[in-house]
């Protein structure tokens, strides 16, 4: 840690990991209800559990992004954060909002647009927190050195905050509601978040591999260019069947096919940099998570996305377990694993010590990644059968679901592995054991590269 104000990131990461725990436990509970549907049915209905599962995910990923920004911007800009006080105020607002949202969900108070169920005051809280954040990081970057990494990171964060405006726009016309809803949902995860992801990945690879900055930053611009060129019009793949014009079927099919490209590039980028890099960085766990994130993102977001994005396929597979399979692996690879890569890289520095618990951390990677892969496979099988029975033959939904029960049981098993992996990860970050299985390197290798 070269700058004192980077310490802010520590508290963002701790809050993020706490919510990560809540998120996966909520997921496990929801997975169990698929197996045993009467469980908690009267006390805590499925829709409330699912809101907690998805909302906790989104908030902890954002907390991780904010923390990552507060960690990497001082190093990139070569100066302290403009105001650490504002950074803490922002964190408090976000935590009060999150706890308020969870509390009101449990009390049955919520909206009904998927993922945007937060009560209005929480939405405003998120907006205020985002504005504080943008002010804070922008002032820091403007006063300091500007790099491609901070350019792209800031652009991603500004745009995603601006798109949050659409969380407040809810037309009475359902089809318009859906169209503008995707401005938040799709243009977050398939456009602006990719900018944030690519910038953070570039920072990590720069530090971990020691490859020349010029090369890393050129890759970065190429990656984010392909992300936005494909992702903006790729929004069309959500516009096929919600009452929008038919031309979206072709626009969406063609451009969302190209959405594979940025993910393929990010995976290639990570491996090429590691091969080219001559540095043997002591933080092996962070490197594993960085490579793992870009690889799983390519399969989860890229391959599994393409699997059902062409309109001729999507006509039959839309809204089945295929979508669930893709959603889980894409989020895990692109955004969960990337955040865990940042935590693995930054936490030792924030605690001013050498990398620790690396074997435990890497074990948690394989447990979580294995679990998510297995979950994706069984949900894909379930979705294929569902598509055939329900969409081709025309059997009724509930009957089809009953015949999928064996897959839901296997999914619960996979989810259990993920939860154990997640808890192991959190443990490996928080608790430093006395003996290390592999010897650590120095805490701050090669300063200022």
């Amino acid at each position, binding site marked *: 840690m070269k700058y004192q104000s980077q310490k802010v990131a520590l508290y963002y990461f701790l809050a993020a990991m706490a919510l990560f725990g809540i998120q996966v436990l909520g997921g496990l509970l929801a997975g169990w*209800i*698929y197996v*045993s*549907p*009467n469980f908690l*049915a*009267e006390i805590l*209905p*499925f*829709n*409330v559990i*699912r*809101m907690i599962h998805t909302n906790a995910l989104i908030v902890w990923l954002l907390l991780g992004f904010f923390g990552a920004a507060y960690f990497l911007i001082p190093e990139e800009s070569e100066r302290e954060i403009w105001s650490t006080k504002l950074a803490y105020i922002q964190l408090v607002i976000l935590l009060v909002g999150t706890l308020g949202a969870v509390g009101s969900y449990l009390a049955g108070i*919520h*909206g*009904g*647009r*998927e993922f945007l*169920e937060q009560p209005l005051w929480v939405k405003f809280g998120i907006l205020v927190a985002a504005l504080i954040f943008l002010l804070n990081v922008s002032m820091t970057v403007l006063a300091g050195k500007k790099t*491609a990494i901070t*350019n792209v990171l800031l652009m991603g964060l500004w745009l995603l905050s601006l798109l949050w405006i659409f969380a407040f726009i809810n037309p*009475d*016309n*359902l*089809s*318009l509601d859906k*169209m503008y809803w995707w401005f938040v949902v799709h243009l977050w995860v398939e456009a602006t978040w990719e900018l944030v992801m690519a910038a953070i990945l570039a920072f990590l690879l720069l530090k971990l591999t020691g490859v020349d900055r010029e090369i890393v930053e*050129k890759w970065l*611009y*190429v990656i984010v*260019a392909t992300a*936005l*060129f494909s992702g*903006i*019009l790729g929004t069309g793949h*959500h*516009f*096929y*069947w*919600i*009452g*929008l*014009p038919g*031309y*979206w079927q072709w626009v969406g099919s063609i451009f969302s096919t190209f959405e594979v490209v940025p993910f393929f590039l990010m995976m290639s980028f990570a491996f090429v940099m590691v091969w080219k890099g001559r540095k043997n960085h002591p933080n092996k766990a962070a490197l594993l998570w960085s490579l793992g994130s870009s690889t799983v993102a390519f399969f989860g977001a890229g391959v599994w996305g393409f699997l059902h994005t062409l309109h001729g396929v999507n*006509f*039959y597979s*839309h*809204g089945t*377990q295929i*979508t669930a399979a893709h959603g889980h692996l894409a989020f895990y690879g692109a955004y969960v694993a990337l955040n865990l890569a940042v935590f693995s890289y930054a936490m030792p520095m924030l605690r001013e010590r050498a990398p620790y618990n690396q074997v435990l951390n890497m074990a948690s990677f394989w447990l979580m990644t294995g679990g998510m892969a297995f979950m994706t496979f069984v949900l894909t099988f379930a979705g294929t059968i569902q598509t055939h029975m*329900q*969409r*081709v033959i*025309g*059997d*009724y*939904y*509930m009957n089809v*679901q009953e015949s999928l029960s064996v897959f839901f049981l296997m999914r619960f098993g996979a989810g259990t592995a993920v939860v154990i992996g997640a808890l192991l990860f959190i443990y490996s970050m928080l608790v430093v054991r006395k003996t290390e299985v592999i010897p650590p390197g120095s805490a701050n290798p090669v300063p200022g590269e």
Partner: protein
Amino acid sequence: MAEILTKSRARNIFYGGSIFFVVIFVGMTVHSHRYVVQTSTAGMALSEDVVHGKHVWEKHSCINCHSLHGEGAYFAPELGNVMTRWGVQDSPEDAFEFLKGWIESQPSGVEGRRQMPRYDLAEEDIRGLAEFLRWADQTDTQGWPPNDAG
């Protein structure tokens, strides 16, 4: 690639290209907005009942179990075409009666079957919800879903 594609060229392509695609996207959005209002959803008036029904739908977060036009939670049946499936799409009164009967019979309590919670809805809420689902059903969704099973 090194000489032709410099970092500053890559950056300029990124900024220029992104603005280009944003402009196209905004244009198509404007056209789509008009198409929705004037064509695809114009078959039935967006009445007070429909709007009230949408609020009832949102207040109870139905989307986190059901799906609507294929979007939602996949835990419970698709409702974008439920009125057609029940055969009551053309009759507001039948739609209301059928929906009221369904909601008031939940939860089924059947062991091993997914449970819908009991919602104590006023008559005007159920009427609104029925109208909202009829309104959603009449939307031109390019022929989706493939069959009545949803």
